[in-house]
Structure formats: C-alpha cells, structure tokens
C-alpha cells in the first residue's frame, strides 16, 4: 500500500523504538508517508533525519492498513545516500561481508586485535562505536568446511554471514538438525544476502549480491530443493526485498520455496513424534527469556522457535516481543547511533532481566550480541537449545560414527568405557 493509504492513526509511531529515545527523529509517520508527499524525483533530498531510522520494520508490521512505512523510509534513505556524501562508516558496513571474510581469514590475529583499546580508537576515527564488542571471527567458517550431508528431502541451507564467519558451530548444529529429521542438506557457495549494503545506502552492491544469490538459489529450487535460512534478516531479504525493492528476476519463485528453519522443521518433528507416539523431543533444564527479533516479526510467519520450545521437557520460557534490541544489524555499531543503540539495548535488556531467567535466547545474531552485552548473561540461538534437547532425547541418532565404532573396539584409546 502506498503512502496515500495512510490515515495518520499514529500506530506506527507507537511502535518506533528510535523515536522513543531520539527526539531528532520525527518518527515513522512523518519520515514515511507524511514526508513522501513532498519528495520529488528531480529534487535533492533535504530530510537528513531519515538516516536515524534503524529499519527494524516494527512500524510496517504494526500498520493496520498495510502501508509499507519502512519501505517508504528505506527508499528515501537510498535516495538521500545517492545524492549526498555517505559517511565512511556506511561504506564500511555496506561491505560487512568482505570485511568479515578478511576477518575470518586472519581470525587468530583479528580476535586478539579487535578488543584492544587502540583498535577501538582507530575504528572510532572511522565512525565505528566501541560498544558492544565486535563478534569473534572463526577461521573454519561454514563456507570453508561446507559439504552436503544427509538423505531425504532436498534442502539448501542459506547460512548468512554471522553463522558463516562468527558462529559456524551454530550453523553446523542447524545442518545436523535438518539431517536428523530427514533432509539432504546442500550448502552451496553463497554471498551476503545484501541487507547490510541496502541498509547503508548502497543499492548497487545489494543488488549485485542479490543477483548472484538468486541465480544460485533458482537453480536449486528448479531441481526441487527448498531454501532454509536461520537468520531472520537474511530470510526477510530473500523473501521480501529480492522480489520487492531489489527487483531480482525469478526471486518470487525462490521466495515461495524459502522457509525459516523451525517453520520448516516443525511439521517434520511433529510427524516423527507422532510416528513414535512421543510428546517431547528431549529435556533441557533451563528457564529462558526468548527475545523475538524485529525482522522475525516482519516475516509474518509467527514465532516458529516457540513451537519447538513447547516440545522440550523441563524448559520454561517467556516470550518478549515488545522491544527492539537497538543494534539493528549494523545500525548500532555506528558511532553516530551509539546513544540510541545503548538506550534501546538497556530497555530490551531490562525486560530480559525482569523475567528472572538465566539465559537470553534469540534467532538473530545481532540481537544476541546486544542483549548478551547489556543483560550481561549468556545469549544463545534457539538452534542450540533444540539441538541440545534432541541430542539427549529419544530421537537422538543412535547410530555411531565409524570413529566411535573403532574407538569402542579399543577402549584404551578414550581411556574408559565406550
């Protein structure tokens, strides 16, 4: 729906995290549909305040009339960036993929340098904020260690940058879960989804990433594969921005066959439980605060991780979906957004702490970095919780690997009983 369908009810403003704490941002109604009436193609943008938008999309999810408030603001930001000189930090974060790739390649060195005050000062000169800490890089990234696995339903796993370069351990657990419930998982070479470039005003680079990913995924979808992602922001870009603002040919078909990992697994797990007459997939003794990422809400697929949590014995969870964590991908890593991100981080972390839980869980890597920092507690991916439950539960793969079978023949190798 275009700006003309806006009836100015203000529901979007009520949902805007930035407008709550940054008085210089006039809020999504004014930055979006209201100002859109005055934006002309031939005239240079003067509304610098659109750059305060963190693109969490809460306004768009809330709009009862379906006005694409966040898209209007995003287009205004792209127009603004095209017509004005972008700060260095925007160029840096648009290239998050390339920088992470280098970070991963030099991981042992990078992980020692990034926490140093001198590094932070240098990054500060480039416009990068000093909190929270940059995530650690892993040399054995997913793309470096990728290989197809399993048998059954054909799935291509879109891992995204965070799991690839920073948390390949979660990526491997995700792949193992898919394999455990009857999938043959392919992990083809893939690029950044393009959202960091899009969010930092570089439409061309975003489109370049999108075209490469879409043509790769189209080949798989045409061969009967489903696409599965675990990062909500990557998922949103694949299913909404590729066919939408990035206008990638063939993206609609890819989007129709693309699923969040737990949206995809839920019916498979349910079938397996029904077949075995079971009610739970396993046991995890924990109480968790589940922070719903803004982009998961924007996907409009409900909160699929909750469906899995309900199948775990011993797990108590509180669903929190009122607050944005404030990091919003690369937004909070920029020095000029430092205050806003810190205030929002403290609000969201406050809600987490009030639950009295010992652990915060979220599907989004950025949310985990931010909430782990501000709530000062461990932050985990739902994949880790579910994998933990399955590995200890009745559905665990009882077949031993070759190495384990060899080891069991020679108990002395492991120094004990097999």
């Amino acid at each position, binding site marked *: 729906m275009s700006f003309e369908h806006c009836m100015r*009810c203000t529901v979007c403003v*009520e949902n805007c995290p930035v407008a709550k704490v940054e008085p210089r941002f006039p809020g999504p109604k004014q930055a979006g549909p209201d100002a859109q009436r005055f934006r002309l193609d031939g005239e240079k943008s003067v509304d610098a305040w659109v750059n305060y938008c963190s693109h969490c999309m809460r306004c768009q999810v809330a709009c009862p009339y379906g006005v694409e408030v966040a898209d209007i603001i995003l287009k205004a930001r792209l127009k603004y960036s095209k017509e004005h000189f972008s700060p260095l930090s925007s160029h840096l974060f648009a290239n998050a993929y390339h920088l992470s790739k280098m970070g991963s390649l030099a991981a042992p060195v990078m992980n020692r340098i990034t926490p140093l005050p001198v590094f932070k000062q240098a990054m500060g000169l480039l416009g990068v904020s000093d909190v929270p800490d940059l995530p650690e890089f892993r040399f054995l990234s997913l793309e470096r260690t990728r290989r197809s696995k399993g048998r059954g339903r054909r799935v291509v796993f879109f891992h995204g940058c965070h799991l690839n370069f920073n948390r390949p351990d979660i990526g491997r657990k995700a792949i193992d879960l898919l394999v455990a419930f009857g999938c043959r998982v392919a992990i083809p070479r893939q690029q950044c989804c393009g959202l960091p470039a899009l969010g930092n005003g570089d439409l061309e680079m975003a489109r370049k990433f999108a075209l490469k990913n879409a043509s790769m995924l189209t080949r798989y979808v045409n061969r009967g594969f489903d696409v599965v992602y675990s990062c909500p922001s990557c998922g949103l870009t694949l299913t909404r921005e590729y066919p939408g603002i990035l206008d990638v040919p063939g993206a609609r078909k890819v989007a129709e066959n693309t699923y969040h990992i737990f949206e995809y697994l839920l019916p498979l797990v349910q079938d397996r439980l029904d077949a075995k007459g079971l009610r739970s997939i396993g046991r995890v003794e924990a109480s968790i605060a589940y922070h719903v990422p803004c982009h998961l*809400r924007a*996907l*409009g*697929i409900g909160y699929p991780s909750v469906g899995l949590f309900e199948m775990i014995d011993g797990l108590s969870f509180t669903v929190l979906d009122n607050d944005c964590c404030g990091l919003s991908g690369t937004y909070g890593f920029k020095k000029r957004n430092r205050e806003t991100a810190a205030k929002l981080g403290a609000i969201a972390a406050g809600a987490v702490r009030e639950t009295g839980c010992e652990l915060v869980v979220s599907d989004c890597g950025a949310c985990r970095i931010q909430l782990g920092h501000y709530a000062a507690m461990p932050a985990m991916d739902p994949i880790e919780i579910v994998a933990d439950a399955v590995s200890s539960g009745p559905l665990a793969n009882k077949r031993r690997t070759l190495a384990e079978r060899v080891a069991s023949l020679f108990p002395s190798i492991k120094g004990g009983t097999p």
Partner: protein
Amino acid sequence: MGEHGYDVVIIGGGVAGLTASIYLAGKGFRTALVSRGDPACCLSTGCIDVLGAHEDPMKGIDRLPRNHPYRIAGRRTVIDALEAFLGLMEERGLPYRGSLGRNTGILTPIGTTKTTCLVPITMEASSGFTTTHIHVVSFKGLRDFYPSYITSRLANTSVSVFDAGTSSTLGLATKFDEPSFVDDFCAWLSGLELPPGKIAVPAVLGLKDPKAVLQRIRASTGREIFEIPTLPPSVPGIRLFRALKDAFLARGGHLYWGNAVASVETRSGQVEAITMAGPCRPSRAHARAFILATGSFVGGGLFAQRGSVRETVFDLDVKVPGPRRDWFLNDFFSPGHPVEASGIEVDSSFRPLGCGLKNLFACGSILAHGEIMRHRCGHGLAIATGSAAARACERLLS
C-alpha cells in the same frame, strides 16, 4: 506455503479478539491469533467504557434494545467477563479500578468530563476532579497537550511546565521508566509551592510499571496524582494492548502479526482453514473453530461501498440500516448515526446468522446493533462479547 494446525484461530487482535484468545489459550486449547496490525485499542484512552449513556451500566443493559450484543450475551456474562478482566489486569501489574454499578467521570485534556466505567489505576484519582484544586503539570514542548484548555474551563486549576528534554508522549513515558528520572521529577515537584489538592499529568507515567511510578510520586510529594488521557500516541492505550497481548503469550498462544486473511476454505457447513497473505509469502492455518473479531469500519472488519457494506474476511451477510441516504444524521457530531448499527447479526451462541457455518463465531464491534458511539460501550462490549464468543467456542471444542 507454510502450514499450521490449531484448535482455534482468532482473526483480529483488538480487545475482543485478545479477550477471546486469552480465555481459550487459558483453557489449554492450541490457539492462534491473526492480526493485520495493531488495533484501535492502542489509540484509545485505555479506559473501559461499559455503558456511558446510563448512570448505572448494569441497570442500563436491561434498557437496551433486545438485539444489542449485551442483551444477547446476558447481564451475567457481561459481569463475569468484566470481573475476569479486572482479575487479569491485576495479574499483569496494570490494575483497573471502578464499579460496574456506577459510571465515573475523569478529566480530559480539554477540561471536560469523560464518562467511563473502569479506569487504569493511574486515572483513579481523576474522579471528582471538580471538588479539589488540581495542579496540572505539563512538559516543555509536548505536542497536542495544551493545559490552557483546562485552566480556561476550570477555575480550580493551575499549571506548571517541566522540561524533560523530550517532547513526545512516548519519549516521556520511556523517561519515566527510569527510576532516576522519576526522582528528578519528584524533586522538582517538591520545590513547587502548591495549594492543597491533587496533581494531574498527561498520561506519560511509564510504559513498564506505571503503578510503581504513581506510588513513588505519591510517596515523595504526599499528594494524589493522576493521568489525563492524551491524543495518540496514547500511552494508556499501548499499556492495555500490551498487557492483553502478553497475557495471551504467557498462556502459550501463538501470534501471527502483520497478516491479513487472503482467503478462507469452507466445506459442508464448516470453516476448514484460512490463508494468511503474509508480508513475504502466504501460509495456511487450519483449525476446528474460528472467531471473527476484525472490528467495524475503523478496524477494517467492515467496508462501506456506495450502497452496501461488505464483511471483509468471510463475506458474511451484513445488516445495514436501510439505503445509504438513511445512514447518516445531518449533524456530524450528534451521537448515533444509523450506519453505526451495521454489522453481523448472531445467534445466542454468537454464530453469524445466515451463513450456515457451525464453527464460526463473531465478537466485538463487528456485531450488528452495537452502536458503540451512541451507547458509549466500546471496550466493554469487546470484553463481554469476546468472552461470550470464547465460551460458546469452548462448548463446541470440548
């Protein structure tokens, strides 16, 4: 396409839909709530109007026309539903006050009286505002709140302005969530030389725990303090909505937000499934029962065309008061335009008449003959019929 299975799917995330969802999820049914977006409740004062047109709402119910939704639900159900609501709000830390047997009057931002029944605890001290001195505290630069409207109407009022460094209701409410800010505000209040009486502020006393903020200011100044509802963004409206939505999540309900219903599947007198349009791709939800709570014209449940009114999800029969020339009164501000009586007519189990669908129920402002503006019964009607439809649905499911 994604596929979901539930016992019951509620369409519409307003007060009626949430009330029904909370009830059914609380009974252990697998419950999903689908909503296009945030409800009109978020823009409301947060007060529960039960029947503003009568001094005693409960007695007034018996004087309503026989086809009014309150009469269909019955007085007992209305009372039970509102008492359950009071209990629920106590549980969520947002207590409501008031008596079902007597309406109360609270101060509006233009110095007039709003008649309502149940008010959030932050507005409790507003009743009887004409009998004592009221000192109105506003905030520097606050948009859409002009205390001079109040002082020009009421002689027993005075005003001062606090500079909080932000000028929106939500910005202020966020500040009031910080204890240190509340302390600064209290210190400033204590420095004012005020005549004996109460303090009134626009409704910005925090989003998280307004009860605690209220108590803190009361303890520090030794005075009663109350909130005056504002134009949207309305903090008390957001609090009410969040309290209900969080209660639903806490009972294990599943939310599908930002989803319009694209199509419905019916077979042999039953609704089998709905397809949610979704912002990215559609998904399907099948269930044993469905509750329609999409609201009237503002909520999008009803859509007025040139000469008719359409129900937007199931294309149900809509009761309309005659041809278009009879829909409106000449005076825009006079309450009770006949078109307000439009909506879905239901049987005693809140099932829409004439569609033959046995597992479909309707509640809230989409119901015909509600005439919410005329009877001033908005949220009350939503709570009562939401609860009644949920109970009827429960009987079908079990």
